[in-house]
């Protein structure tokens, strides 16, 4: 799942980032789920400003990677899909964010 990010400069060493979390909507969903225990599909859609189709596809990728758990239930006879971050997802997010932090620090140190 991890691969080095090519930053296009010899000055910057390669940093390992998680492929699954390299999409804006996917890392956004993971960060939001790390902060809140459970978020519904429609809440994620509003917060991440995504369309139904795109968010559905991105969440499926997180689900396939085992990073999020899905629970479907009915609220007032309407189906609601809830997402929660799994322990695996939490670990992956922590490592990914640490990698990003290193990358940005290195980029700041690198000469123009």
């Amino acid at each position, binding site marked *: 799942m991890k691969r080095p990010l090519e930053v296009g400069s010899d000055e910057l060493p390669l940093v390992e980032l998680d492929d699954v979390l390299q999409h*804006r909507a996917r890392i956004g969903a993971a960060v939001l789920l790390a902060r*809140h225990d459970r978020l519904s599909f429609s809440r994620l859609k509003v917060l991440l400003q995504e369309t139904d189709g795109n968010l559905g596809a991105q969440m499926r990728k997180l689900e396939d990677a085992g990073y999020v758990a899905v629970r479907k239930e009915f609220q007032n006879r309407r189906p609601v899909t809830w997402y929660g971050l799994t322990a695996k997802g939490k670990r992956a997010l922590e490592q990914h964010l640490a990698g990003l932090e290193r990358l940005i620090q290195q980029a700041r140190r690198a000469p123009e």
Partner: protein
Amino acid sequence: MDQLERLQGDLSFVRGALDTSTRSKSPSALYFLWAAIILMGFALVDFQADLVPEYWAVAAPAGFFASAYLGWRHARRIGQASAADGRRHLLHWGAVLVVVALAALLGESRAMPSGTLHTVILLLLSLGYFTAGLHLDRSFLWVGLLMGAGSVVVTVVPLYAWTTVGIALAVSLTVAGMREGRSREATT
């Protein structure tokens, strides 16, 4: 550096989404509930002072549990459930409730005259609302300040001071609840 710029853009977008999600909002019904409870309870001090302890002994815990239920229902309705946030609200308002109840016992034991006790309770509530405004929900900040000002008013104004303060608090809570409802409509 294109990729790096994209990453920074993504992170700033995620931070924005996180800020929006953590801007803690209480349900409008909760403001309206406490507007009604406070209005009634404060007016009683002027019109039926002997009923004040009984009223608050029932209304305060009932309001607390009703608020917890409204908060839980609201979290499900907006699709955002956070046990940590729920715990923080429960601990804050639970502590306010306990402290006010302990202060009320001072009145029962005649350690404090009832007039002073009412003002002390108002000051405690003012602190409770103000700190809630700082740490939980910004809308409570003004209610806390208004309560603080109200504690001065009830010691200075001789007639219907509690009713006046109660009306002012009920109006400010109602306005805060209406603004909350409107801002939620705009973001959902």
